[in-house]
């Protein structure tokens, strides 16, 4: 039980992180997953400098043209280069979910750990409220907020961070319950440590693994939500290139211009698959059984 050690020295912590990373990379799923995620992240950063065309440049002579030497993935219904838009189409999604995921995991995790430790009447009430929130489909909750406050990223980030933090409360609370009953927590309490100290030194290090895997999963669910909202027309607004929006636009021309759909479909799928493979490998490396978790 090495995790009992209260605050491991900085270099052992780094060593453990590297060890986990090596373990993840050693698994086929982790190697493929991390490669895909890294590829998408790098692409999102450098894409503005490598795209062949302007993403909003329309050309009425080039509408719905098939793949060619000049336009590798053809053009869309407004004569815009599909490859350019596919390369740029993940930036918004990665930016929004990349900020919202850590926020969701942090606030949900801290609240869950706190109430897992404290328990009592307030905990009971909170769990009822959490259940009530979870019983509404995500799309309804999010749409009500988005319709009220608009569709920019300054609305999407807090909305996603809020709603996707709620299930984290449950997970963190359950993980805390597993730890709280152990001897070293009782020992810390017997030593007279306050709640904050117990959370910081005993609970957080032990719940962190679960939260990391949970965070990876939240990320993929958030991407699903974000792109679904875009698809429905409640996400980013045109002409900003976004995979969900592109699929929605190109769907009508699918019968004679399938390349407009296939590009964003492959890009979005590969990112989400990459995240999931990574999460899977991470869960196995950390010894957490992810399959037990509820999908909500």
């Amino acid at each position, binding site marked *: 039980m090495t995790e009992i050690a209260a605050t491991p020295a900085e270099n052992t912590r780094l060593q453990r992180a590297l060890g986990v990373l090596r373990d993840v990379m050693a698994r086929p799923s982790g190697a493929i997953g991390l490669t895909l995620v890294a590829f998408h992240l790098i692409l999102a950063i450098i894409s503005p400098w490598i795209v062949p065309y302007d993403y909003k440049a329309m050309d009425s002579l080039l509408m719905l043209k098939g793949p060619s030497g000049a336009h590798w993935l053809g053009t869309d219904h407004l004569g815009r280069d599909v490859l350019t838009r596919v390369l740029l189409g993940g930036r918004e999604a990665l930016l929004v979910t990349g900020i919202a995921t850590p926020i969701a995991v942090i606030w949900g995790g801290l609240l869950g750990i706190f109430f897992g430790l404290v328990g009592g009447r307030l905990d009971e009430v909170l769990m009822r409220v959490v259940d*009530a929130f979870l019983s509404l*489909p995500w*799309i*309804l909750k999010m749409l*009500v907020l988005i*319709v009220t406050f608009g569709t920019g990223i300054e609305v999407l980030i807090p909305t996603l961070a809020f709603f996707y933090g709620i299930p984290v409360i449950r997970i963190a609370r359950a993980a805390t319950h597993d730890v709280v009953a152990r001897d070293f927590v009782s020992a810390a309490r017997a030593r007279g440590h306050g709640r904050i100290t117990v959370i910081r030194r005993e609970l957080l290090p032990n719940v962190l693994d679960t939260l990391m895997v949970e965070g990876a999963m939240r990320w993929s669910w958030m991407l699903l939500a974000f792109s679904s909202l875009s698809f429905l027309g409640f996400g980013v607004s045109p002409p900003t290139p976004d995979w969900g929006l592109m699929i929605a636009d190109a769907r009508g021309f699918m019968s004679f211009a399938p390349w407009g759909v296939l590009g964003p479909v492959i890009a979005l799928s590969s990112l989400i698959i990459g995240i*999931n493979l990574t999460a899977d490998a991470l869960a196995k490396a950390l010894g957490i059984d992810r*399959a037990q978790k509820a999908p909500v």
Partner: protein
Amino acid sequence: MLMRRLFLGAITVWIVSVIIFAGVEVLPGDACTAFLEREAQGKLLENCREAQGLNRSAAERYFDWASGALRGDLGVSANGQKSISELVGNRLRNSLLLAVCALAVGVPTAIFLGVVTGLRRDKPVDLVFSTTAVFAMTIPEFVSATVLILVFSVWLGWLPGIVLTSAGAPVSEFFPEIVLPVIVLGMVMTAHILRMVRSSVIEVMVGDYVQMAILKGVPYWHIVFRHALPNALLPAINVVALTIAWLLGGVVVIEVVFNYPGLGRMMIDAISDRDLPVVQAIALIVATVYVGVNLTADLMTMVLNPRLRTHALRGS
């Protein structure tokens, strides 16, 4: 135990109704400003609010709305002046039809594949289906739906890719248009349940009593069917319930993709039109369905699990 579950379910629905009501309440504007749009000022707005009873206190209106909902009267829509219960009726039936078809296809497939992958853990068959399941559950429904339409409707021309039947049409007219939506929904559902059944089977197979049976020399299939599966499948019932709740969000997207006249598309339309009474009503229905499904799952688990049954009889 049973009474406690019923009570907790009722509490959850009640909290949801408060959240819905409060949520819509804090939104700027109300049914009248949405209905009158630019003319929403002065006398016209006041008259409208009076006619709709919007000038009363929030608590009074909540009470009215909640007691009406209990009697099955969900109020009238903001713009159409139609009874929401009437509007929702057919849509709810259509969404349930979609869900039931998907369940009928998905649950047996998921249990079968879950058991197979659980028993053949880390073998090729497990890796193939487990990995496919992860993809099926995490790729957005609109993406898998679009790909299926492209393949089966556009390229192969086997199935219609869009539903043209109107909301009130008899159930038989939805075939074969409903097939592709059912496949997409069923696929996601299968993936979720499969993973749960698999991990449950794995857990049971390493249990003491299964090990004991193996050591006693009980035939393998006898162990699987008599000892392991009854215990492994019980938790699956609750998972199916949870999955249904999760899928309600996906149903909305699928209904939009296929132009299916269900509750989900109605909700999207209502939100776009800012028809708040309809949004409230749909939210309440969905939450009630969720709680009802979970209750049913608890009941089924209780009936099927001898241990819980005796507990329930003793009233603990």
